[in-house]
């Protein structure tokens, strides 16, 4: 766990740094992947950029709306650099809406866009794991296994290491299947299914799970639903590709 790198008076936060590296590597893959899916690399880069900005703005506005009277007294606090005053889920929702609306306005094809972004998502997932390792977040349950690590007052499963290892395997799988000629959405839906399956598996070793219905881990139920949806999605897209008239270009479907 190395949350902070102190360089003189400057305290660099490693988790944020690793997330930035993940975003940067992800973006650098876009130009390489976009042509393969007949999508404009520039348009895709813009889409990601607007999505990131919308995510940050949405997360801050979401947080501020919960405490509107306090922020009304000091509106400049909306521009605070403090990451604790962000509402991540609100940000994610706003980013998804903005990306969807912008994609639709620019007539970007829905599935090819997601397929082109898949390797970027897969590489980001690796660095999300590294950020967790650095901050000590997403920590494991207490254990007696010989490879347990001491963290937060107990010997725990090194879930962050499991997370990184499995994310690397998924990235390699995504990198491999991207070569195969398949149908639109295959790459994204395959990644989504693998990512959900991994979360479903790994959550069992986590020590910070949110519990619902008394004993069940919320993340496992959500992962199960996403996994099932991804598998159904794969079937629907495969059927579409098989039944499509060859002359009709699937990419004309827009977001």
């Amino acid at each position, binding site marked *: 766990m190395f*949350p*902070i790198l*102190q360089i003189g008076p400057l*305290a660099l*936060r490693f988790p944020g740094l690793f997330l930035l590296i993940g975003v940067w590597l992800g973006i650098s893959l876009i130009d390489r992947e976009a042509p393969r899916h007949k999508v404009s690399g520039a348009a895709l880069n813009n889409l990601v950029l607007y999505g990131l900005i919308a995510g940050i703005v949405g997360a801050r506005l979401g*947080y501020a709306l*919960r*405490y509107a009277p*306090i*922020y009304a*007294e*000091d509106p400049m*606090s909306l521009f*605070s650099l*403090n990451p*604790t*005053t962000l509402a991540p889920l609100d940000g994610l929702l706003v980013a998804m809406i903005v990306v969807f609306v912008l994609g639709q306005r620019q007539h970007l094809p829905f599935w090819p866009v997601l397929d082109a972004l898949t390797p970027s998502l897969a590489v980001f997932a690796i660095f999300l794991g590294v950020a967790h390792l650095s901050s*000590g977040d997403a920590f494991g*349950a207490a254990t007696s296994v010989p490879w347990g690590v001491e963290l*937060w*007052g*107990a010997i725990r499963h090194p879930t962050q290491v499991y997370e990184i290892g499995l994310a690397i395997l998924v990235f390699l799988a995504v990198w491999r299947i991207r070569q195969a000629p*398949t*149908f639109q959405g*295959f790459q994204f839906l395959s990644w989504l299914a693998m990512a959900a*399956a991994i979360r*479903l*598996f790994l*959550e*069992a070793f*986590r*020590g*910070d*799970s*949110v*519990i619902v219905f*008394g*004993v*069940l*881990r919320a993340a*496992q*139920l959500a*992962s*199960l639903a996403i*996994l*099932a949806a991804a*598998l*159904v999605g*794969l*079937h629907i897209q*495969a*059927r579409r*590709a*098989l039944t499509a008239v060859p002359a009709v270009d699937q990419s004309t479907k827009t977001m």
Partner: protein
Amino acid sequence: MARIADPRRWFGFAALVVLLGLAWTFRSSVPANATTGGLTPSPRVGFVAPDFTLDLLGGGQVTLFELRGSAVVVNLWASWCPPCRAEMPTLQRVYEANRARGVEILAVNTTFQDTQADAAEFVRAFGLTFPIPLDRTGEVSRSYLLRALPTTFFIDRKGVIRQVVLGGPMSETTVQTAVEELLRED
């Protein structure tokens, strides 16, 4: 592609995967209090704040555990630290505005890397009225894994850390919203 498009084959496979997932979900079910750190004291969100007893500047002692029932803000600072100087008036204003609502502030001076005289001058200059515990040995700073000054822990009435802010200065909005979250959880 043909395999995926074949409904019987694919849905058979999908059903098997989902059933295995469901079995794993039930296999790994745990009681609600088995996660989020339980009662292990540790300086991170979701865990019980590590207890400490320290001498106070001006006399007396304070024990964190005895403040259970109050929302507590533990701020670690030093007199030579510029962001600490910048945010201390904010903490004083938030303290004055919320003390009657059951909010306590413990501004722990990291005396092992400061001097008691400088700390006392700092407190006088800013007119601070909340308790100033003195961490003379560095034991509390170590148990709270102090890595940056200032660092602030927002602890709820049950003694569980709800937010950690590394560095500063925090704006009044940041402190006030964090305090509201502590009070809202009851």
